[in-house]
């Protein structure tokens, strides 16, 4: 039975015309989608996958433009070049879209009910009572509990996952023929992601809606999509049935993407894609004769550490509270009596979802926050000073942060950023600074001549290398890595992981690796600790925890991770 395709995209090209030149975000993309089919659109950042989605629904703002010669046909009707008023009638009714960040897509000033009603009224006339009834029904459809009450809530009263469900409910309101989802679960926790994926599968089957799921995550796409298109530099490099593409990729790029995934590789081994550097890091500076390590088995001791965050009310607020007019603010116990011991040279993975306290614990270990109680010691020496206002007294533990765009001072050259710490602490003399910086840049796989460049002149992956160089230039013994690869593309991620593996070996570093990404942690770490709501629920050798999880939460977490076929 040859059925006419629901959506037919031919030679779609979307270019951005800036004064500096033309950026070809989408450069000749063609595919077809049948009724009720689910297609995955996969690519790294800059591949043009999101822009493709926006082009189909007609939301490209100047200076972007869908170029003439492009064709997007919905049920044989041409959408490119359609009058704006006609296009508006299609948006939300025949094609709708769900965006990535639910925090930003819902208006914080209006109730959920109002926003659903506005979406309803965009295409039909409904009375107040009818609108309310349908809003409640829409919320129920996406499995939001107690929809009758929730309809009058404001967005800030929902969690991230619930907000995304609301967005999906709005997208489903008019029973569209096609829904385009632009990375809808990227900003959500793994367990929430798993729930939403399952629900989407059911809804799509129930309603017969076609789905275009845009993502950088191959495993997520594998769970959901019938067929997959892989994009790179604005073009589709490979397309086909999901199973086939993922188990027998034809194009080298697809192959490279798959190889770069930690889940596809043996733990501890370098991933494909190389490190980008063969240069050995500079030798350790012996400030004084290095003291013999007192106790290698208990090198890092984090003992009974607790950290609480509470808003301190102002003077008048306190008075109001005393008068009973106002409640005391809610405090968050981010870290709740945690004890961890690391061996010298060990890599410990701290895994958890948002709110688990893993970042806070990492920062306490690194000396960024002072714990409310408990202590952190490295080789017996305390990290924080004693007293009322503790401050960090050691340079032996350094941190690498998540966001490469935010972790470097944009107004300092990378050379200065790397050299600042060592110079201040007397690890090197001013005369040696230049050479020292060059050595480190080479060690992390960057051209030493780039020392005089500014952060904005580097890509995300390169900036992360600079951040690594900066941390390691302080010659630490312990490095806390706070989600260092979470913001990076898969292929770059592989390189950075390789770099960390290599440097760890060569410098005999002890690592605390914080991540929400279970496969990365499995690949890199010897031991793993699973955190939930400020406590460690399970810990042990990585292999053990992953293959034979004991605690319920661990089991749930592992079950929620989408798995690639053939992986």
């Amino acid at each position: 039975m040859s059925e006419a395709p629901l959506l037919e995209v031919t030679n779609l090209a979307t270019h951005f015309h800036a004064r500096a030149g033309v950026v070809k975000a989408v450069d000749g993309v063609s595919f077809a989608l049948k009724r009720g089919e689910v297609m995955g659109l996969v690519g790294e950042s800059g591949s043009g996958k999101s822009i493709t989605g926006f082009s189909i629904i007609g939301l490209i703002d100047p200076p972007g433009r869908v170029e003439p010669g492009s064709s997007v046909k919905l049920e044989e009707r041409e959408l490119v070049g359609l009058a704006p008023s006609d296009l508006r009638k299609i948006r939300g009714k025949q094609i709708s879209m769900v965006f990535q960040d639910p925090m930003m897509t819902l208006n914080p000033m209006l109730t959920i009910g109002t926003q659903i009603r506005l979406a309803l009224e965009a295409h039909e006339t409904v009375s107040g009572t009818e609108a309310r009834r349908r809003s409640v029904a829409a919320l129920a459809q996406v499995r939001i509990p107690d929809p009758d009450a929730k309809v009058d809530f404001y967005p800030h009263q929902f969690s991230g996952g619930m907000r995304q469900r609301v967005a999906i409910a709005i997208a489903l309101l008019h029973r569209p023929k096609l829904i385009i989802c632009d990375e809808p679960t990227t900003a959500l926790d793994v367990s929430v992601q798993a729930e939403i994926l399952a629900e989407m599968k059911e809804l799509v089957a129930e309603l017969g809606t076609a789905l275009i799921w845009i993502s950088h995550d191959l495993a997520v796409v594998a769970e959901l999509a019938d067929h997959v298109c892989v994009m790179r530099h604005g073009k589709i490099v490979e397309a086909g049935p999901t199973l086939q593409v993922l188990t027998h990729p034809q194009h080298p790029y697809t192959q490279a993407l798959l190889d770069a995934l930690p889940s596809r590789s043996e733990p501890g081994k370098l991933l494909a894609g190389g490190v980008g550097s063969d240069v050995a890091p500079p030798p350790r500076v012996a400030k004084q004769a290095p003291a013999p390590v007192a106790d290698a088995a208990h090198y890092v001791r984090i003992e009974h550490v607790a950290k609480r965050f509470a808003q301190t009310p102002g003077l008048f607020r306190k008075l109001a509270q005393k008068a009973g007019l106002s409640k005391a603010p809610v405090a968050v116990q981010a870290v709740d009596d945690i004890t961890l011991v690391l061996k010298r040279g060990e890599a410990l993975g701290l895994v958890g979802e948002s709110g688990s306290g893993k970042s806070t614990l990492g920062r306490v270990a690194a000396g960024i926050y002072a714990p409310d109680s408990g202590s952190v010691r490295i080789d017996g020496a305390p990290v924080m000073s004693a007293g009322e206002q503790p401050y960090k007294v050691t340079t032996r533990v350094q941190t690498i942060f998540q966001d490469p765009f935010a972790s470097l001072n944009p107004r300092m050259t990378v050379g200065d950023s790397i050299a600042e710490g060592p110079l201040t602490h007397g690890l090197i003399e001013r005369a040696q600074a230049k050479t020292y910086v060059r050595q480190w840049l080479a060690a992390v796989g960057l051209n030493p001549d780039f020392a005089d460049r500014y952060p904005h002149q580097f890509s995300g992956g390169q900036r992360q290398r600079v951040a690594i160089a900066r941390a390691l230039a302080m010659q630490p013994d312990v490095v806390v890595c706070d989600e260092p690869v979470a913001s990076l593309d898969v292929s770059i991620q592989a390189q950075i992981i390789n770099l960390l593996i290599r440097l760890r070996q060569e410098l005999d570093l002890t690592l605390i690796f914080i991540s929400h990404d279970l496969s990365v942690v499995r690949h890199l770490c010897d031991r793993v600790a699973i955190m939930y709501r400020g406590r460690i629920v399970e810990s042990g050798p990585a292999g053990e925890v992953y293959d034979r999880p004991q605690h319920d939460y661990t089991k749930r977490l592992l079950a929620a991770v989408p798995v690639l076929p053939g992986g």
Partner: protein
Amino acid sequence: MTDASPAARFWAEFRESRTAVVALAVVVVMIGIALLAPLVAPQDPYDLANLSLSDARRPPGFVGEGGYTHWLGTDAQGRDLLSAILYGLRISLQMGLIAGAFAFILGVSLGIGAAYAGGRREAFIMRVIDLQLAFPAILLALVLSALLGQGKMQLIAALAAAQYAYFARTAHGAASAERGKDYVEAVLSTPLPAWRVVLRHIFPNCLPPLIVVATVQVANAIALEATLSFLGVGLPVTEPSLGMLIANGFQYMLSGRYWISIYPGIALIVLIVAINLVGDRIRDQVNPRLKR
């Protein structure tokens, strides 16, 4: 990948707006004229010997005693208006820039200091700043001028007191935002001493919004000084700023001798508008939420 420092990049982006570049040129030219006024003005308006009442209130183009052509006419005392405007420009710019500089130093120190201190002290300082911001600047300047008396230094003090709060609030906002960013945490955790972090890391990154406020405030100071002079509370009569000139000529407007007020007025407006245009462009450049 551009091979450029933040400053060079900033300038390149600035240049993209022709209006802003023209405005900047105008400002630079006016500053130049103001600096060179003693050399450039055809006549020294303060030299009493040059005043001759018989030449008073003459229209533009009038050729007076001594053979000077008064290109813009003369004022009520017989001063050459062109020279008076040049000197007036000088004074107006002086007031604006010096008062602005004082306000900048005071305000920025307070704002960044409050952000650094944190806790109760920060809350207290910022509450005071907020309240002062709600208090109308013109009133503050009026009252302070009246209390402190007439004179350049007093006026500068009044203007600076009326304006430092804007700098303080902007500096505090910017410093707080930077304080929360990863690179500051990274640098603090090396560990590096707090003073170094504030000076070398936080402050330079607060500069862009501060520059915006600075341009607006300098323009405001100039306008405020002109208003105060117009109301008779500003500078002494012996050193007429543009505002004073306009005030002096006000009474002659209705009788048709418009030039005595209009020309100084035009000079004032051009200056202020140019400064504001430059500030506008910088503000757009610096606003992260406008980057698509």
